[in-house]
Structures are given as structure tokens and as C-alpha cells.
């Protein structure tokens, strides 16, 4: 009983840290891409609007990246503090990507520092833009390396297990395990998507409530375009991930889909409820779609959850996580496509109120989808910490103080979250883009005022 409690609390503490970190990590990977694009357009088109956009995004980004760095440090240490037995065993196999991740992080940290403090130091602005490249590369590589570690936990390989110790270790085989390609693709594309959607959401919101200027309209067009492109990429990545699951982790897909009996031509179950006998009620059923999702063939046989021993099954509530994630993904794809259609059709007004509200919503929604997706991915491999080798209960610490640490970190994340919001507010409140434009680029400011009028 006592041990069970420690394990539950250890899981909750790790979940809390990761869910909080995921918000900032996702922005950390995605925002530099958009900053770099905006700065590049600004230089090429000689349009200070875009340069200012890059500048202001960067200013906000500094704050989120700081929280990302400290929560990332926290999870790095917590891995060993909360899961000591797991790290002792798995450390022999996953040390390489963890180590490489810190290199990528180091690289990013150095160039982010330089990028932030050298906006006006070069005569030719392209030199400053060059500095954004290593930041983008570092952030994306960090995501890549750390995702390979998570992939390894889902489909461990590259070692042999003898008497509780790993032998014949092949670090590269462990890194490039079957889960790696789809997971990395999905994590990186969805991070880019979320960052684009959050920035698009902010632009749409400002146009709605403050009647934004030309600057905001340009920002919106750029970010919605990016949202649309990254949403397509993410959808492709999601489809590939489902096919991967069907082959390598059928129990995760089956639990996510409430697919109990193995059958050919399996239906896709959307939302709904389960009754006491685990029968699906009130759901929308899309005939044969699960077979298509899993194998690209409407009549393929999909393995059901009943094939998995009962004590190795993930909880069934992850179905909702899967459904929410996918619904938000399609919503974002749809609404950004609609905006682009309105924009290209000269007669229609792409800045109509309903469309803008729809876009504004994608910001918080995509961030939620990130959280839902991670919960689905992580809870979906319960009860394993290393699928097939070590359960979560075997990996946890035996220290009796985990609960106190949970409370301590809950307070810290609350303070960090509030501090982050307050600081962001402080930065942008009372310093609207128009004023800054006037201050830095008076000519452009005058020109855009005429345009607005």
C-alpha cells in the first residue's frame, strides 16, 4: 500500500513537471522558426513591419524560454531523483542522446544570448539573421534527441538483458528505434504548428479587440499561412504515427480507439461513452476507418485490446485524449484553410469577426492538443516505463518524501506561471507595436497610417 502511494505520487510529480514544461518547450522549439522567417522577410522585402514582428516575438520568447530552461533543468534532475532505478539501468543505453541533447541546448543557449543582445550591432542586418539559424537548429535538435529517448522507452532495442543488466549495448540502434522517425516527425511538426497557431491567435485577438493596424494584419497573414502548412505536416505525421502504433504498440492504439476485438475492417470510434461491460455507446462510428488509419487499407485486420494481457493494458480513458488531439488538429487545419480561401477570394473579407475568433481559438486549443497528445502517448504505454522490460512501479524512488516534493514543485510552477504571465503583460502593455514602429521606423509608421485611413 505504502509503495503504491510513492509510485503514484512519483508519477504525478513527473506528469506535472512534464505538462508544465511541454508548454514552454513547444514554444521554445517553434517560435524561433517563425522569428527567423519574419526577420528574413523583413530584410528581403525591406519591410520594417516584419523586422519589428521578429523583434517583439523575440522579446516575449525570452520570457518563455527562461521558464523552459529552468523546468527543463528540473526534469533533467528529476529523472534521476524520482526514477533512480530506471536511470541506473536505462542510463547504460540512453546516455548518448541525453548527452547530445545537452550539446544542442548549449549551442542554442549560446546563440540565443548573442541573438538577443546584438539586434543593432551589425551594419548589414543579414548577419543578425544568420544568428537565428543556430537557434532554430539547436532547438529542433534538442527536440529530436530528447524524443529519441522517449521513443526508446516505447520500443526499447539495442541491448540484451542479462540478470538485470544491459549488455551488448548498441547506442545508435537504441536511438534509432522503430518509434523514433514518427515520434520525432510528429513532435517537431506539432511544435512548429502550435507556435504558429499561438502567434496567429495573438494577432487575431488584437485585431478583434483593439482594431489592430497593418502591422497586425501582416502578422496574421504570415502566421496563418504557417499554421496551415505546419497543420498539413502534422496531419501526415499523425497518420504515420497511427500506422506505427498498429505495428509496434497495438495495445496503445486499441486502448485509444476502444477497439477490443481483433477484426477486419475495423470502425473508427469517435468520442462516445463506455458502459459497465466495456461496450461503446453514444459514439460516432466511421466504418472501416480504423483499418485505414492503421494500415492504409479499409479491410485490414486491426489487433484488439483483448489480445493484451489484462495487467498490461493502458487505461481506457486515453480514448478521449486521442479524440481531442485529433479533433483540434483538424479544426486548426480547417480554419486556417478557410482564412486562406477568404484572403485569396478578393470579394470576401478575411478579417470578418467569426473567422478571427476561430483563429484566435487555435492558439490555446493547439497547446491543449499538445498536452492531450503527450498524455495519450505516455499513459498509453502504462504500465511500462520501458515497454516489455520494466514497469513504472519498479523504476520509482523509495524515498518517503516524494509527496512533500510534489507540493513544493506545485507551488514553484504556480509562481513561475504567474510570473511569466505578469512579465509578458508588463512587456507589451502600454507599448503597442504602433508606438514602437513610430519610434524605430518613423517613415514606415507614417506610411502605414495612411494605409489604415
Amino acid at each position: 500500500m505504502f509503495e503504491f502511494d510513492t509510485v503514484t505520487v512519483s508519477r504525478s510529480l513527473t506528469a506535472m513537471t512534464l505538462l508544465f514544461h511541454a508548454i514552454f518547450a513547444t514554444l521554445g522549439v517553434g517560435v524561433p522558426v517563425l522569428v527567423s522567417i519574419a526577420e528574413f522577410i523583413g530584410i528581403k522585402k525591406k519591410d520594417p513591419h516584419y523586422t519589428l514582428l521578429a523583434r517583439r516575438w523575440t522579446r516575449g520568447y525570452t520570457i518563455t524560454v527562461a521558464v523552459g530552461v529552468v523546468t527543463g533543468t528540473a526534469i533533467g534532475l528529476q529523472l534521476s531523483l524520482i526514477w533512480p532505478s530506471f536511470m541506473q539501468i536505462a542510463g547504460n543505453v540512453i546516455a548518448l542522446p541525453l548527452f547530445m541533447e545537452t550539446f544542442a541546448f548549449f549551442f542554442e543557449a549560446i546563440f540565443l544570448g548573442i541573438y538577443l543582445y546584438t539586434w543593432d550591432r551589425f551594419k548589414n542586418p543579414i548577419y543578425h539573421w544568420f544568428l537565428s539559424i543556430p537557434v532554430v537548429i539547436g532547438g529542433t535538435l534538442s527536440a529530436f534527441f530528447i524524443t529519441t529517448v522517449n521513443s526508446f522507452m516505447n520500443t526499447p532495442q539495442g541491448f540484451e538483458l542479462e540478470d538485470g543488466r544491459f549488455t551488448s549495448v548498441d547506442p545508435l540502434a537504441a536511438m534509432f528505434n522503430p518509434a523514433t522517425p514518427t515520434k520525432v516527425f510528429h513532435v517537431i511538426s506539432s511544435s512548429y504548428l502550435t507556435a504558429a497557431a499561438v502567434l496567429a491567435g495573438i494577432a487575431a485577438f488584437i485585431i478583434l479587440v483593439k482594431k489592430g493596424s497593418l502591422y497586425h494584419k501582416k502578422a496574421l497573414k504570415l502566421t496563418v499561412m504557417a499554421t496551415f502548412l505546419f497543420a498539413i505536416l502534422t496531419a501526415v505525421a499523425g497518420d504515420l504515427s497511427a500506422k506505427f502504433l498498429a505495428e509496434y504498440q497495438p495495445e496503445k492504439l486499441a486502448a485509444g480507439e476502444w477497439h477490443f476485438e481483433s477484426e477486419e475492417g475495423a470502425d473508427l470510434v469517435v468520442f462516445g461513452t463506455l458502459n459497465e461491460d466495456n461496450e461503446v455507446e453514444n459514439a460516432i462510428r466511421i466504418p472501416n476507418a480504423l483499418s485505414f488509419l492503421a494500415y492504409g487499407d479499409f479491410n485490414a485486420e486491426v489487433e484488439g485490446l483483448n489480445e493484451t494481457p489484462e495487467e498490461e493494458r493502458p487505461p481506457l480513458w486515453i480514448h478521449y485524449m486521442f479524440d481531442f488531439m485529433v479533433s483540434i488538429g483538424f479544426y486548426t487545419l480547417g480554419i486556417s484553410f478557410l482564412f486562406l480561401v477568404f484572403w485569396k477570394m478578393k470579394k470576401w473579407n478575411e478579417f470578418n469577426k467569426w473567422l478571427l475568433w476561430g483563429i484566435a481559438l487555435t492558439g490555446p486549443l493547439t497547446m491543449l492538443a499538445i498536452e492531450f497528445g503527450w498524455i495519450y502517448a505516455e499513459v498509453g504505454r502504462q504500465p511500462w516505463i520501458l515497454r516489455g522490460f520494466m514497469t513504472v512501479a519498479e523504476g520509482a524512488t523509495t524515498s518517503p518524501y516524494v509527496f512533500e516534493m510534489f507540493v513544493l514543485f506545485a507551488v514553484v510552477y504556480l509562481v513561475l506561471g504567474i510570473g511569466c504571465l505578469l512579465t509578458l503583460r508588463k512587456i507589451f502593455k502600454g507599448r503597442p507595436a504602433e508606438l514602437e514602429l513610430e519610434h524605430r521606423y518613423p517613415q514606415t509608421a507614417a506610411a502605414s497610417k495612411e494605409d489604415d485611413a
Partner: protein
Amino acid sequence: MSYELIGITVLWFFLYGYLIVASIDFGAGFFAYYARMTKKDHIMNQLISRYLSPVWEVTNVFFVFFFVGLVGFFPDTAYYYGQSLLIPGSIAIVLIAIRGSFYAFESYGSKDNAFYMFLYGATGLLIPASLSTALTISEGGFIEETANGVQLLYRELLTSPYSWSVVFLAIVSVLYISAMFLAYYANRAGDEPALELVRKYALFWSSPTIIASLTTFIALSQQNYDHYESALDLWWVFGISVAFFMIAVFLVYQGKYYGWAFVSVMFQFLFAFFGYGASHLPYILRPFITISSGVTNETMAISLIVVFIAGLCLLIPSLILLMRLFLFDADYVKGKK
């Protein structure tokens, strides 16, 4: 050289790197707070924020690098340190989190907040104190292994003269290293009032630093006589360290060659730190982990070393660029850019 020895040397270098860059950072926090209390903050703040803002993240990475590398090369450390350091480790994370994030928050106007300045100063002293616990327990005698896992013996830890002398040494060296660096930086910036102030700090903290080093040595002989004896075998290494200490203090006292003074400080700690580390071997955590028992498998160790070399080829030019743009760019240091 065997790969476990390469591994521990690499890691020790990174810990040393962290010791230097983090000390500058942590000490600066304390001085900034102290200057505010004594109404001299206008002299100090500009100096500190110009150097620290671009590099705080890099400082943090040195630390992450060390612990990820340690667990990578010696996975057993994850088990023993992880089990026993849950509380001190978590406290250190919290302090680092407060400090790191408030750094960024600070750039946008919380600088005038007295409570924030207090946190900034206090974390600067508490982080080294909490991190030094890891070094203290490595001497053995502070943790026990039972059927229920590994436990830290808090009573032993809190009543040990050795653990307190390590904490004291950590704090005073932080202040000493930081003041020495700030003196160098103020001199480069041509900031006379700041230089005068931090030069005083540097000279003031030099004597507790050397005294604490001696008392820690004596406490070590009580705590772990074997380690003390192997340290005595390396007496010349510690002798060189003391010589560099004297050069550094002499130069600052003369008010000349601040750059060389800081280089001497770096050598002083380099020798002391490596002397300590070398005499600690073959144990990483007495008596549970030695470098040969705890090391990872050969393939992993070799690939870590390969990645490490490749990573350095990327990092060293980047770090040089960072330093040229901020630390050694005379105009930037003087506040013109």
C-alpha cells in the same frame, strides 16, 4: 588512459567550469543585494547586468552538462545519488528555477523590487550550499543502504563539522571568485567607482576563502582519513594553488593587472579542484561506487567520448564568439553598444 578516467576528467572539467561561471553569477547576486542595502546599487547594477544577461543560460548549461554526463558515464550514480538526494536536489532545482526565470523577468522592470533583490541575493548563497551536499556525501558515512533502498542520514549530515565546513567554503569562494571577476570587468569598463567597491569586496573575501580551505582540510581528516592521506600525497598540487592565490591577491592589492589576477584565481581553483578530485579517486561515492565499478559499458563510453569531442568542436568556437562579442568587446563592456 582508460575511458572511465577520460570520462571523469571531462566531467570534472565541466564541474570546474560551472564552479567558475556560476560563482561569478551567484556572487554577483549577493553583491547586488548588498549594494542595494548599503545604497550603492547605482554603482553596481549596470556592471552586473551587462555581463550577466547574455550568459546566464550558458551558466545553467554547464550544470546540466555535468549531471547528464555523470549519469551517462556512471549510471550507478543515478541510483545512489538519486535515492539519497531527493530533498537537497529538489531544493537546488527550486532555487535554480527561481533564479533563472527571475533573471529573464528582471530584464523587464522588477529590478527595483526589494523582495526580488533579496531572492536574487539569497539564492546566490543557498544554491552553492545545497549543491555542495552532493560533494559532502561522496565522502561516505552519510548514506546507508537498507532493504528499502538507499537513505540519506540527515542527522549525520546536519551535525557533521565536515559538511558545514564544505558549505562555508562554497559560500565564501563564490563571493571571492565573483568579486575578483567583477573587479576585472569594472577595470575593463573603466568604471572607477565600481572598481573601488568590488576591489574591496575581493580583498575582504580572500582571507575567509583561504581559511575555509584549511578548515575543510582538517575536517576531512576527521571525516575520511584515507582521503585526507591521499590528498597529502598530492600536497604540491595544493601548494601551487596557494601560490596562485597569493599572486591574485597581491595583484588586486597593488591595483594592477586585474586580468592576470583573475587568471590566477582560475588557476588557484583549477589546482585545488583537481587535487581534491584526484585524491578522491578511485571512489566516486564511498563506498558504493568506484570509477571502474560504476562505469557504463564500453560502447557507450566510447560513443560518449566521440560525441564529446565533436561537441567541443562546435562549442569552443561558439563560446569564443560569445566572449568576443560581450566579454572582450571594449565598447560593449563600457556600455556603448
